[in-house]
């Protein structure tokens, strides 16, 4: 995401926070296809993805005022809202107790909004791709399956045919290697 787009999105969110409906429409035009794709990827069900997308934009309209305090780049904030909402629906559908709502980690105010964030993020993006490659197909695939399809440790373990604890330990180490790689 280039700087001009980031600034445009931040301005739209700021105007949405002030109740500007035309800015809300513009934000929807600019981002709804991407957020819809995330909902579809996680939920694998078009009607439910569409319903989730509606909840996501209602949430965005209501919480835009808190955006500037959370320190995330605008697209990450929007993606996180969409993903968390879809994950919560997924977990509710699976009636899987034992998983905390993803929304819990959604809005954490930051004391440092970090104006350099977008540059950092675009660097991180290419770095992320390189580091996932370095991680190897199996672990990178598992990270993608968790992020884009919402798989749990148990589901991954079943897919790989290993005990959950083994899988968890393996993926946790993969995440640490990923962090080490992108921090280099």
């Amino acid at each position: 995401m280039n700087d001009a787009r980031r600034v445009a999105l931040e301005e739209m969110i700021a105007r949405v926070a002030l109740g500007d409906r035309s800015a809300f429409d513009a934000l929807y035009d600019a981002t709804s296809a991407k957020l819809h794709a995330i909902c579809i990827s996680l939920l694998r069900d078009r009607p439910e993805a569409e319903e989730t997308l509606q909840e996501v934009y209602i949430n965005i309209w209501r919480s835009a005022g808190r955006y500037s305090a959370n320190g995330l780049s605008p697209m990450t904030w929007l993606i996180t809202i969409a993903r968390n909402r879809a994950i919560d629906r997924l977990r509710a559908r699976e009636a899987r107790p034992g998983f905390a709502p993803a929304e819990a980690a959604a809005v954490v105010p930051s004391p440092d909004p970090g104006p350099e964030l977008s540059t950092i993020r675009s660097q991180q993006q290419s770095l992320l791709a390189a580091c996932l490659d370095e991680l190897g197909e199996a672990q990178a695939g598992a990270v993608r399956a968790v992020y884009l399809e919402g798989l749990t440790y148990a589901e991954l373990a079943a897919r790989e045919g290993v005990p959950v604890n083994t899988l968890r330990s393996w993926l946790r180490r993969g995440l640490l290697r990923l962090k080490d790689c992108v921090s280099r």
Partner: protein
Amino acid sequence: MSDELPPPLTPEEEDEVLAAEMALGLVSDEDAQRGVARLAEDPAFAQRVRDWQERLAGLADELTPVMPPARARQRIREDLGHVHAPLSEVIDSRIGWWQRPWALFSGVAAVLALALVLLMPVLNGRDLPGYRAELVSADATMRVDARVEGREVEVMLMDGTVPEGRDWQVWFLMPDGSAPISLGLVAREGPMRTTLPSGTDMVEGVRIALSDEPAGGSPTGRATGPVFAIAPLTPA
């Protein structure tokens, strides 16, 4: 993947992994309580979670965007109460307020007409060249006069008080519907003087608007608060 148990993670590694799992939505119940508490109490940990959110969001770029059906937007508008009576729906909501000021205008116009009649003797006596606009709020408690001579602009608060902690921003609206251009803030006392910014011209159909903004003016360069007065600049 091996079935042997690897050496346990260090506390530092445990934190990092928990942050990643929070961002991924992979946290089990027992860890979730710990994690949520940490988010509130430990800014460094909260930052780790945000870093993971930022890091992982790049994965969403691998997805091909899918346009949602039009009814999705319609339902969002209905849920938020943004849907108006069918007649007003004709107005495209993507058109900026400066391009469809008729609703605001009709309220202001009546007050303006009355004000003009009352002020006519005064205006005639002052013999000012250039263009003028009188900006009067719908309830007629606030009035701001604007005058343009050549490229010189003078804006003066005539009635009412700018609230503490707020500012009234003056906008120059070209007749071509382009985005409003800020001329500055209304002074609390005395005139505010400025010159027309480059790219603007005093042509027929130019209007002036006032919006209510946070102290110091709009943080975004566009009107963010309610526009409470709008008026054409007419030859004085």
